[in-house]
Structures are given as C-alpha cells and as structure tokens.
C-alpha cells in the first residue's frame, strides 16, 4: 500500500522539485520561478474567483458532458440494435467524428451566439463521438447466449435494454465516457478562449494578454489539477459501477 503510494506520488514530486529548483532565479519574463507562480496561485484563486470563473466552467462542462452521455448512449443503443440504421448512419458518423471539434467553435458561434449555449454545444459535439461509437460496439457485442436467454424468458422491450443490453455494454460505454471526459475538458477551455466573459479559459487568456505571466501559469496548473481530480473521480465511479466486470474477468483469468 505504502509502496504503491510512493510509486504514484514519486514522479510528480520529482518533477515538482526539478521545476522549483531549475526555475529558481529565472530571469526569463515568460518562465518565472515556480516560487512566484505558487505565490500568484494563492493570490489569484481566491474563493470569489473560483466562484466567478471556475464554477461557471465546471457547470458548462457538466452540462455538456451529461448531455453528450445521454444522447450518445441513447443513439448508440438505437444504432447498435438496428442493422439498417447502422448501415445508413455509420459513414456519416465517421465523417462527423473526423472533424476536429475546435474548428466548429466559430461555426457554432454563428448559430448559438457566444453564451453558455454555444459552449455546451461545442462540448457535446466534441465528446459525443467516443461515447456513441463505443456504445454501438458494446451493444452489438451482447453475447448470443445471453440474448437467447433473455428472449426465452420473455425479457423484451425496455426491460431487455435496461437489464441486459445496457449492463452488458457498460464496460465499453465506460471506456467511451472516459475518453469523452478528457475531450470535454479540452473543449471547455477552448470554447472559453474564443469568446466568453468568464471561465477558466477566458481568465487564462486574459492573464496572457495583460502579461500577468505567473497568474497565467497558475491558471494552467489549476486546469491540470482539475483534470486530474475529475479523472480520479471518474475512475472511482467506474470501479464501483463495474465491480461485477472486474470480478468476472478475475474469475475467468483464474479458471
């Protein structure tokens, strides 16, 4: 346990110390000493600022991510269960998926303005693809014996989707959600860099434009920490929800 913790914390600690030591006494305006950055961090990210800039960002992220998850899973189940739908939609989906989402920010701005709606749409559009495509694959991969069992016992319609199809596809869906989370964070920041009046991305760009370099760096560190915390939360939730899957795989390895 302690050894595991040491491995996990070791490298970040070394990097931190290296950065601290090497940047100490730096004269470069754009790469200030870490000491200054840390001081700026404490001064900049006060509770008021967190409320004014970080909370709106996180709310937009949550809205976009949740919407993408709901739409992606619902569409994915429909496409995965219906061969004709799949044949019709798959090429189109591959095309949309190939478009880098940041490119769409200006386009979506034209339609949805520069408010919260635009940012949420950008996040949805960017991070829905891994969720959708993984759900389709997961739904298609439902075991044939399980499918037969469900049918033989009259488990059809909504019950089949809720009790058999979705749980069976859930490991795949979780993989899609995990990929989508990091994309969503990136798009949250990018959408705020284009046009916004608050938010983390907006604030960092403001700092950069006003040459508040240590503050800019502190914002970047905060972003990194946020991303790390979110992925940690996701992993905890995933492990809880997919406990059966880990156990099953463990059992299969043993036999």
């Amino acid at each position, binding site marked *: 346990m302690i050894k595991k913790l040491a491995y996990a914390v070791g490298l970040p600690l070394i990097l931190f110390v290296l950065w601290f030591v090497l940047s100490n006494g730096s004269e470069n305006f754009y790469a200030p000493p870490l000491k200054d950055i840390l001081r700026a961090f404490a001064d900049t990210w006060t509770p008021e600022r967190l409320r004014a800039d970080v909370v709106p960002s996180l709310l937009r992220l949550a809205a976009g991510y949740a919407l993408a998850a709901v739409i992606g899973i619902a569409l994915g189940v429909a496409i995965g269960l219906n061969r004709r739908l799949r044949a019709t939609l798959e090429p189109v989906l591959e095309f949309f998926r190939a478009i880098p989402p940041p490119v769409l920010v200006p386009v979506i701005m034209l339609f949805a303005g520069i408010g919260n709606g635009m940012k949420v749409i950008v996040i949805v559009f960017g991070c829905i693809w891994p969720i959708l495509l993984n759900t389709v694959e997961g739904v298609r991969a439902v075991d044939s*014996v399980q499918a037969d*069992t469900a049918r*033989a016992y009259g*488990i059809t319609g909504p019950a089949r989707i809720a009790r058999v199809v979705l749980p069976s596809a859930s490991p795949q869906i979780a993989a899609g959600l995990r990929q989508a989370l990091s994309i969503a964070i990136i798009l949250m920041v990018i959408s705020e860099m284009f046009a916004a009046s608050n938010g983390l991305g907006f604030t960092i760009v403001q700092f950069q434009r006003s040459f508040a370099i240590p503050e800019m760096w502190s914002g970047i560190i905060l972003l990194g920490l946020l991303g790390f915390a979110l992925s940690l939360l996701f992993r905890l939730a995933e492990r809880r929800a997919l406990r*059966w899957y880990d156990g099953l795989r463990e059992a299969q390895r043993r036999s």
Partner: protein
Amino acid sequence: MLEVKGLRKVYRSGSGDVEALRDLTFHVDTGDLVCLVGPSGCGKTTLLRCLAGLLDPTAGTVRIDGHEVAGPPPGLAMVFQEYGRSLFPWMSVRDNVELPLKQKRIPRTRRLELVGEALDAVGLAGTESSYPWQLSGGMQQRVAIARAVAYEPTTLLMDEPFAAVDAQTRADLEDLVRSLWQRLRVTILFVTHDIDEAVYLGQRVVMLSSSPTVVQDELVVDLPAARDQLHTRADSRFTALRTHVYEQIQAAKRGRPATTV
C-alpha cells in the same frame, strides 16, 4: 405436452443451403421426461432453438400445450449448456432468478417466495447475494436450473446442461433433475450427447440421426422410477438399453453422412 410434427430447418446462405433438420416428428407427453440423443453435430441445438421459438423452422410445426410455437412461449423455460454465458454476470444470483418473474409481473412477495424455494430446491440457499462468477461451474448451472424452476414452466428444455461440468458434479445434477421432475411434474425434454445420461434420466429416449436429421429410433426406458447412480447404472436392464441406444447412434453415424443440398 410437446408435439413436433414434420419439423424441417434449412439454413440459407450464399454458399449453398444447408439442411440441418430434415423431418422430425416426436412428442413428449405432459409430465414426461424424454431424453434426446444423437451423434455430435446432429442439429440438436437447431432443434432446441426451434422448439423454444428462438428460430423459425422452414417447415413443420411445434406445439406446446396445444399452442403452436411462434416466438418464445410463455410456459417454457430453458437451461443452456453454456451456464457462464446464460447467467447475467452483472446481477446477483437472486436477481438472475428473479428477473424473468418480474417480466411475468408476479407480485414482489410471491417473487421472493419463488426465488427462495427454487434456490432451496437446487441446494443453493444462502448464495442469493453472490454473483454467478463467484460460484463453481456446477453451482452456476444450479442457479440456471433454479431460474427455470422459479419460472414455473409447464415445459422445460435442457440443452446439454451438464456437458461442461466434471463427472461427479454431473452425477449430482442428474439426480437433482430427476428429483425436481418427480416433484414438480413438469414436462422435460433433455438433450444430451451422453448415452448413459440419456438412459439414466429419461422415461423415453429419442435417438436422432446425423444431419440432415430425422428420428432414428425411439425407446421406452422401463427402469423403475426410483433411480440412483450406483444401482441403476449396474442394472442389467440399464446396460441392455444402453447398448441398444449405442448401436443405434453408431448406425446413425454410419448411415447418413452430412450432405449439402
């Protein structure tokens, strides 16, 4: 009562049609236990899927309790060979057994009663909140049997249910099936490739030819109703019946090689 009349199944594909079942006619009386044996690859699984309404036959009819089968019939339960793939690994043992009952809209108190009784009957009381993959293979198949029993079917189809468990577990499970059958008076069609098992379990044995399949022979097992692994299997009548079935299966293997139409 399970009636199969003129059942035929041809798989159509680009590279030519494959006739799996040619012409099958047999029946299982209400409350009877009939075993179906045949050489490997004789289309047993195709037949069972047709009986369970999971596969549409090309010709012929299947009737269960007088109703023609078109889609899974409500009074029918099935136990699959691949227990590991037939139980849902994301559900506890209790939920696995209970799920089909929920679908039948049985009230909660009655459901829990049925689940408890069924798990008790297969000797698995106390495992309710385990996951299937935490149990041994034999215990998993017991869960699948409990699920079928709790469903209160009139007809029970068993597709080589013990092919994947070890010999000792298998003997226990055979006795379990006999005793459940005697207690619950359900109609059971038990498919197996094991001749001993067929004779030991069945009141009648239906022998199938190799594919394209027809009924090769039928045999009434005139052994006493109370059977046990030790004495029944040593009985001279048992060995005589067993030899008969064995000869028929050998003849079936030689007689008709698989053909493509």
